[in-house]
């Protein structure tokens, strides 16, 4: 019958298209696609502009908080890392004035210029989460150091995992 043959042809065609296009990979991010906080299609895509940077003379305090760590192919705040950001949010809400610089970093692999931007993505993801925790956008600065300031110098996953991070620097 004409319509049955047509359906069989289209079904075979569909199978072939799927087989031939198998090289194209969908996102491999492990966190339920790229829809989470900081994901490419995440909330707040239009963004809230950054306020002015703190003056060069402002007091800055690093090392007050535990860094947030990221998976290799991710710029999203994992669920297991969220409490670290929540701690920062609580601290900021206790003290008025001043704010935090959210400093994004990458591991040593890949293009320096792209890694500068990937580090900025990680910083932006943490900033977005702080904002959902009601921290005022104007109090959060982002800064990326790309792959230029590793804390671990080994050429292995143990070091790379320590370098894929966001650090918090309070300023007044």
């Amino acid at each position, binding site marked *: 019958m004409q319509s049955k043959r047509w359906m069989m042809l289209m079904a075979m065609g569909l199978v072939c298209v799927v087989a031939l296009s198998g090289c194209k990979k969908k996102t491999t991010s492990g966190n339920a696609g790229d829809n989470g906080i900081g994901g490419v299609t995440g909330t707040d895509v239009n963004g809230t502009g950054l306020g*002015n940077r703190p003056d060069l003379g402002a007091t800055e305090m690093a090392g007050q908080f535990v860094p947030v760590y990221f998976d290799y192919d991710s710029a999203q705040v994992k669920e297991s890392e969220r409490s670290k950001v929540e701690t920062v949010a609580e601290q900021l809400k206790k003290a008025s004035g001043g704010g935090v610089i959210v400093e994004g970093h990458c591991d040593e692999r890949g293009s320096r*210029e792209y890694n500068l931007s990937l580090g900025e993505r990680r910083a932006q993801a943490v900033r977005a989460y702080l904002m959902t925790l009601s921290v005022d956008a104007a109090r959060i600065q982002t*800064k990326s150091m790309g792959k230029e300031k590793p804390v671990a110098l080994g050429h292995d996953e143990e070091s790379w995992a320590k370098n894929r991070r966001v650090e918090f620097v309070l300023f007044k």
Partner: protein
Amino acid sequence: MGKYFGWLSVFQGLEIGVGVFSKAWKMVLVLLIAALPAPAQVRVVKGGSAKATIDWSRLVATGGAATEFKRVLEDDLIHSGWFTPAAPGGAEFSLVGAAQESGALNATIQFASVIQRQWLLSKQYTAESGAARRLAHKVADEILAAIGRKGMFSGRIVMIGTHSGAKELYVCDMDGGNLSQITHDNNICLGPHWAPDGNRLTYTAFLKRYPDVYLIDLAARSRRVVASYPGMNSGGAISPDGTLVALILSKDGYQALYVRALNGGVPVRLTEGSRAALASPCWSPDGSHLVYVSDQASTAHPQLYVISRSGGAPRRLTSRGSQNVAPSWGANGLITYASLQGRFQVCVLDPNTLDSKVVTPGDADYEDPSWAPDGRHIICSRTAGYRSRIYLLDTLGDSPVALSEFSGDWYSPSVTAK
């Protein structure tokens, strides 16, 4: 089309089974061919390019500067890829002359086609003794012009080196010689790119503890801020007419590609708001488009996109390789870039057909390619054992060549347009 025929014969087998070659089959075939994956990527066959033989046994040099002139000239002619030195008798070209130093450097050059029995270049040159290298580069380019080829030796390379113990900018000639240190900041810097005039360059530096874009004027020995907006400032690609600068900025809460007058004003956003990481904008030779890097398709898997300078929908250029980064758009219309295929390889892509070819041997990580002024060679960094050096690549099949060696790591090269 060769790889398509295998599939066609499978379908023909199916059609015999079905028993009908109907219009529906033709439509399915058209759909399937349209859905086949990326355009061809060809690996350049190694074995060296075709070269003309040249006899320079009667090019005589007397004195230190003259000897340096002769050596640099001969090395340039070899590195151009168009010549190979040969013994007297039987060479296709001859280079005869004398260079001597007596106060100034004087050189008489006579370059001939032996086959055509014709002088192609017959000229006298004078330069200060300290300018022997520059004169050699100039003569090399003139000899190449005499055989109808564009030379690359007027070009200069800016790059980052850790020779001093910190990351600083350096400039050198196309053969790696004449190295000079440009910055003394003892600070982090990245992404140097020449302005079209070859006298100024932009780069990203953390002089105020944030990534900002600066413009250095080498002749005036001055530096000024180009972009220091809140958040990240990077890119700093000056348009071919020298009036605009393309920037990646995160000031609006997300990263986007912007274009602004170089000397100030309000940046105009070209890309839609998204959480993607954008990097490395580079202008087309006619200034009508920009190629840039974006990971919008998949985090940590950046690809190349092209967009009109007036904005609109970007078009994706790359599909092969898990990362495609660091594009350089040559005057020849081709884009060279680094592609992660196991290791980083340097590739050359035609943005019209999307066909690409790999021009590196795959034995190390080759990154940050930049076109040489001859449109044939590419300068890049090569990293092996976590040490980086600057290399000269050939798109016509010659093997990669290391440029002069100094201690430290050398990377992120950018070559002047001319």
